[in-house]
């Protein structure tokens, strides 16, 4: 759709962030090279510019980091909760102080729009540290017995879609409960975790309490399998989650998994349609759809299908795709060439299987990894695009006639992470919400997060909850 008025570019300055040409691993309070000297490059997905060269952790580094964390555990877990709390409050404050720098950094390394890093990621990151800081000296009152104890060394492996936010979800509750951590960020987005290491130093956090090991899957596997790790937390794909569950079987390590999803966003005919359309857009195009709880299956009641689709297409035509550092950008870059190839292949498969594909008129930049927002209509439950997680800006539209049919279709998936319900009828919200097999239900809203609110899945979306009082349990011997 041609616009009568073009927006002038409104780029956020990248001068607030100073990216060094190379970074080491962060082990025992020091930045160090990998034992075998390996490094890898991290690029900006929107331009393919090399941002920095980062040390690549291997098994020897994992061992060193776990030893450092083990050594630090004794003192850290023995600290009075109020003291641990103050460290976490310090970290939270420094994150707030440096949030602009971190938002720009995250946008550069991940490709997501600055509007999202600035307004969603960073405020939530700080809020998580504030929330769990307050728990550190109140664990006796958390409902897990009078004196719940930490588990020891937590091995944590996080994905690239919300690099700093996933770090916060993992590290804040681990430290509050008295555990020490070894965290492996994703290979495509290691930078914000390394900046976080620097924040730990500014906060005066004791050496070894937090260790950061950028690296690939092999480093993650070594961390998960390390015999001196007491707790494993993983966010990522269901396939890797299953592999991790097999690895820790019989070891007694405590395990939590936040895995894939294929969320249903259910729109009833009495829904407030303008709000619903906004919610559908937020549900699947937030973070380029690279969200495990994305509302990637739109279930529309048949009687309003055409109306919703028309409004949705109009709305999609106003989305602005391009430079993630531009403050007017809605849709940024896909995180990596590999992920772009996966999305492309699945979308092509959708077409090949007979669904009808639509995207707004949209110019993709010449360099970088880009995928236009895409709708598929005429999708059936048998289609691959209705079953497999795409992890990209691709929405499959299905229809239903009755609430029972909506529930049956929504639950017809191996996953059970999230779902949305759009209707003005309160009893319908409550009835449908109670029947959906998913850990998070958004009614008349979507993709809302808060540190006080437990998040996590049913079925093959994993087990355990992050956030809220429930999130403490994963790091306590209860």
């Amino acid at each position, binding site marked *: 759709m041609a616009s009568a008025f073009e927006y002038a570019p409104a780029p956020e300055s990248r001068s607030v962030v100073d990216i060094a040409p190379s970074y080491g691993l962060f082990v025992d309070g020091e930045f160090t090279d990998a034992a075998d000297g390996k490094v890898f490059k991290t690029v900006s997905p929107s331009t393919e510019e090399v941002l920095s060269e980062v040390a690549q952790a291997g098994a020897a580094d994992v061992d060193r980091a776990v030893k450092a964390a083990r050594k630090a555990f004794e003192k850290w877990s023995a600290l009075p909760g109020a003291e641990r709390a103050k460290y976490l409050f310090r970290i939270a404050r420094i994150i707030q102080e440096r949030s602009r720098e971190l938002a720009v950094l995250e946008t550069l390394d991940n490709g997501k729009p600055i509007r999202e890093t600035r307004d969603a990621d960073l405020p939530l990151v700080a809020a998580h540290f504030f929330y769990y800081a307050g728990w550190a000296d109140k664990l006796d009152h958390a409902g897990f017995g009078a004196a719940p104890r930490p588990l020891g060394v937590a091995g944590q492996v996080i994905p690239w879609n919300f690099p700093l936010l996933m770090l916060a979800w993992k590290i804040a509750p681990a430290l509050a409960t008295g555990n020490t951590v070894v965290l492996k960020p994703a290979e495509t987005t290691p930078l914000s975790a390394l900046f976080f290491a620097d924040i730990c130093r500014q906060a005066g956090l004791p050496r070894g309490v937090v260790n950061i090991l950028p690296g690939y899957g092999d480093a993650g596997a070594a961390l998960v399998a390390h015999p001196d790790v007491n707790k494993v937390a993983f966010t990522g794909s269901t396939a890797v989650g299953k592999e991790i569950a097999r690895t820790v079987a019989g070891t007694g390590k405590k395990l939590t998994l936040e895995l894939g999803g294929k969320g249903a966003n259910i729109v009833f005919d009495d829904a407030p349609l303008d709000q619903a359309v906004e919610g559908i857009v937020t549900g699947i195009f937030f973070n380029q759809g690279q969200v495990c709880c994305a509302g990637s299956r739109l279930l529309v009641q048949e009687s309003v299908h055409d109306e919703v689709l028309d409004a949705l297409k109009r709305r999609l035509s106003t989305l602005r795709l391009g430079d993630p550092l531009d403050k007017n950008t809605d849709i940024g870059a896909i995180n990596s060439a590999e992920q772009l190839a996966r999305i492309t292949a699945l979308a092509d498969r959708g077409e090949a299987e007979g669904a009808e594909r639509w995207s707004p008129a949209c110019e993709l930049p010449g360099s970088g990894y880009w995928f236009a927002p895409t709708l598929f209509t005429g999708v059936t439950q048998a289609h691959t695009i209705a079953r497999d997680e795409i992890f990209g800006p691709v929405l499959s539209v299905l229809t239903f006639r009755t609430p029972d049919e909506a529930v049956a279709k929504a639950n017809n998936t191996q996953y059970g992470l999230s779902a949305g319900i759009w209707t003005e009828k309160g009893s319908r919200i409550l009835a449908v919400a109670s029947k959906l097999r998913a850990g*998070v239900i958004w009614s008349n809203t979507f993709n809302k997060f808060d540190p006080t609110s437990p998040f996590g899945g049913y079925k093959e979306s994993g087990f355990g909850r992050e956030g809220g009082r429930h999130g403490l349990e994963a790091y306590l011997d209860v």
Partner: protein
Amino acid sequence: MSDRSDRLSVFKTYKLYVGGKFPRSESGRVYEVTTRTSAAGAAGKGNWLANAPQASRKDARDAVVAARKAFGGWSGATAYNRGQVLYRVAEMLEGRREQFVREVADAEGLSKSKAAAVVDATVDRWVWYAGWTDKIAQVTGGANPVAGPFFNLSSPEPTGVVAVLAPQESSFLGLVSVLAPVIATGNTAVVIASERSPLPALSLAEVLATSDVPGGVVNVLSGRTAEIAAPLAAHQDVNAIDLAGADEALAKELEIAAADNLKRVLRPQPVDDTDWTAAPGTERLTAFLETKTVWHPTGSLGASGSSY
């Protein structure tokens, strides 16, 4: 039973309990169950008690089908109703106290008075769990004070079909201590009874059948634990598994199988050292619950300065 020495007693044919019915094993197999002379177990020294059915993989799969079918109704019943039904089970257990005392004494090699204490503790344990059905959501759920104009509520829900490997040594109190929390929270169960001492579990099934527990909510299998557990751990329609009755090697094997559909796994603590008479805490209640969090906008009366 009878003091008249000239009367021949009537034996009972113990059967499986699947979907509210009492089938023999489809495999047609049975195995000998004998009395136990001591809790430590001197195998081979006991007297013959019965031929218990030796359930097969097919029996296990049938039990899962029954448990799945029963899940909607049981999980959808009100918590108050589930509490009433469970309390009714305790009433029936009390009525069969003498039978269970005899069976537990035989199964665990206990004196009659000790067996009576175990049975009393078991009935009390069942009553304790009956009282939990309508309280667990209040204790583990709640409102989350999110930083925005949203109503946000977390509540626990049953995870689904739970395979329960009952403790091997404590044939009745241990069994009830692992089974009752699973169904109190709205799950349905496929239980593998203690391999050596299955009779109290099979008799418990008769109690369940004659109380108000809907068929399929609890399914009881006897036989070789490892043989029956393997298909349950690998079953795609089982949501969780309690490994209480597995030894270390079996537990590891089952935990690996359980990863295939990411079953919730409750690992075997050193179960057979467990003092089942001690207060159990809520761990077994929460182990098979999911937390569902529901968000809804509230508008922003407070934020807009409204006052009443």
